[in-house]
């Protein structure tokens, strides 16, 4: 079987070489980079615009963004026929291609987030490294901890008031530069699709903007969801253990999620959600109005074959219901959880409808291709390009985030600025 043949069913007149080449991993990739960008923008809302109520969320979002950053290239690594040759993008980049921007943008963004995290947690690194330095006989674990934290200080041990103030300024600058870079990180993913003139569904100048808007939406939503879950989890764990070594934690912190933090974050979520919906509807209306050559086949896909995927799953469940939930006054945590879950699902469906939907019709405009997502993996190919592969990618950020929170603790109020 040729690549793509296994999960493609052709109908009517399709060119012989046409298959669904860009499958679920290419759906996961913009989804993950969108989460990265969205989480970062959320964090910057505090650092750059000084929205005080978002302080707790900001630290959380930044670390989560960094964890997501390591997961984001994984869909590509799984998709490439030659994953190890992926390094060619850095070695001989062809900048006329949007994908070549990946090397620069990703590295730049990674550098910015890593630097921002360094400034944010520098004091914590010093405070962990120095006592360990003094300690004479270290256990193996302590040795490892010492090496890690010592190198993380980058040789800077000054934690005076003045240097900390400089750190704060650096954070603000990095967060400010980071916003356009984060937008670029996801905007270029939109450009990857929007610039393909051969694909009638993808080609629109609105594509990069739609992607960015929905990316921010998904990032904010995921941060809200993870924040709620983590805070509630901590509260539950604390209430089960004895309080002997938790004497430092004030009762207030363990009250769980602050409803105000959620409400103000939801406000921003709503703003970007409205923008994303507006742009997508605009695209649809324009297509119908101008009715170019491809409209007949695209209409049959949008209003016919993919109607449920687009209007029920993406627009109704993913956009309309969350819109109502967040517009109604008196937002509760429970409603917020349902809302953000639907939003994340909606953003995923948007990526699905763009990537898979764009391959649902043939280049002939006189045939269709149906995508059967491989559910049960039978070999490496059906694993990596199937449900199992997609789920692995989706779950990967969480253990990574847990590991990172050991180095960049997200809950101890003392370590942050």
């Amino acid at each position: 079987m040729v690549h793509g043949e296994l999960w493609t069913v052709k109908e009517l007149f399709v060119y012989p070489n046409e298959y669904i080449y860009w499958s679920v991993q290419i759906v996961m990739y913009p989804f993950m980079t969108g989460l990265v960008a969205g989480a970062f923008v959320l964090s910057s809302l505090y650092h750059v615009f000084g929205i005080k109520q978002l302080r707790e969320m900001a630290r959380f979002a930044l670390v989560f963004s960094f964890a997501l950053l390591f997961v984001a290239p994984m869909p590509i690594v799984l998709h490439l026929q030659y994953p190890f040759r992926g390094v060619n993008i850095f070695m001989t980049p062809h900048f006329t291609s949007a994908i070549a921007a990946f090397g620069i943008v990703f590295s730049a963004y990674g550098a910015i987030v890593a630097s921002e995290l360094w400034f944010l947690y520098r004091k914590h690194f010093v405070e962990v490294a120095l006592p360990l330095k003094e300690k004479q006989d270290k256990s193996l674990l302590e040795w490892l901890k010492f090496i890690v934290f010592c190198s993380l200080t980058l040789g800077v041990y000054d934690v005076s008031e003045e240097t900390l103030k400089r750190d704060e300024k650096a954070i603000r600058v990095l967060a400010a530069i980071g916003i356009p870079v984060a937008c670029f990180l996801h905007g270029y993913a939109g450009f990857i699709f929007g610039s393909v003139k051969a694909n009638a569904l993808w080609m629109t100048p609105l594509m990069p903007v739609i992607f960015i808007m929905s990316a921010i939406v998904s990032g904010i939503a995921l941060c809200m969801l993870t924040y709620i879950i983590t805070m509630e989890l901590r509260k539950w764990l604390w209430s089960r253990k004895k309080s002997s070594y938790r004497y430092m934690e004030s009762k207030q912190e363990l009250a769980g999620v602050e409803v105000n933090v959620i409400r103000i974050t939801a406000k921003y979520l709503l703003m970007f959600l409205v923008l994303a919906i507006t742009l997508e509807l605009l695209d649809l209306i324009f297509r119908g109005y101008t009715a170019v050559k491809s409209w007949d086949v695209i209409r049959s896909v949008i209003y016919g074959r993919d109607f449920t995927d687009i209007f029920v799953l993406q627009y109704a469940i993913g956009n309309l219901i969350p819109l109502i939930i967040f517009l109604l006054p008196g937002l509760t945590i429970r409603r917020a959880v349902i809302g953000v879950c639907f939003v994340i699902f909606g953003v995923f469906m948007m990526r699905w409808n763009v990537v898979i939907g764009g391959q649902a019709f043939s280049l002939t405009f006189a045939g269709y291709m149906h995508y059967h997502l491989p559910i049960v993996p039978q070999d490496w190919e059906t694993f990596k390009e199937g449900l199992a592969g997609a789920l692995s990618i989706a779950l990967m950020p969480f253990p990574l985030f847990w590991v990172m929170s050991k180095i960049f603790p997200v809950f101890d109020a003392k370590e942050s600025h």
Partner: protein
Amino acid sequence: MINRRDFLKNTAKGIAGIALPLAAFEIFNPGKLFADKSDSSKVRYVFLIDTYKCVGCGMCVKACKHENEIPYDANVTRTWVERYVMTKEGETFADTPKGARDGFTTSRIDLGGGKFQDIRQKDIEKAFFVPKLCNQCENPPCVQVCPVGATYQAPDGVVMVDRTWCIGCGYCIMGCPYGVRFFHPVYHTAEKCNFCYHRITKGLKTACVQACPFGARQLGNIKDPADPVTKIIMTERVGILKEEYGTKPQAFYLGLDREVK
């Protein structure tokens, strides 16, 4: 007075800084960027297809598979033939069973999924065959979107793929409006018709041109005014596929019908 430590530190930084440009700046050579577009090359390969002469025998597809080592049973092909049947009621049916690897041996149209369309002879208004292959475009969108420079255009116009460099992202396959590209089932790199480059550079014809008994396929050099193919392209009414994409395809069709996709 500079102390020894600072002197050594700064020297090391300086050497590192100088060593860098030597390795780095081969990404862009400004001179080559503004390469001579006026192009002193004496050869620019083009293709001519006569859809009146094509009978749909599929010998070209078979020959191409053997010549270019594309596994015979794999459902991908560097070239193929399409059939169009227009009925008196104004309906158009089109198919390309296995890319016409085995020719067209039945009047029933293959609709995919095991379904066939029977068309009565007396209902046919017109019907014809259209061979397709890579158009070796003058503005190839597939080359533009390759992120690593694995696919490229040679000075004589032929677009090729470097199998040792291709990472298999599939962007070029998505970028081609004509659907001529695919993943090679054995090499797992992007693959497409390259005008049998190993033959034409030795003065031979492409495998499909040689295999066609009816002369429906011709290879030419548009830069040679004495070339019979060039003469036909310049003097007769020829069409190209999907002109609206701006790719400037270099495969020319005689008898191109409005219904051809």
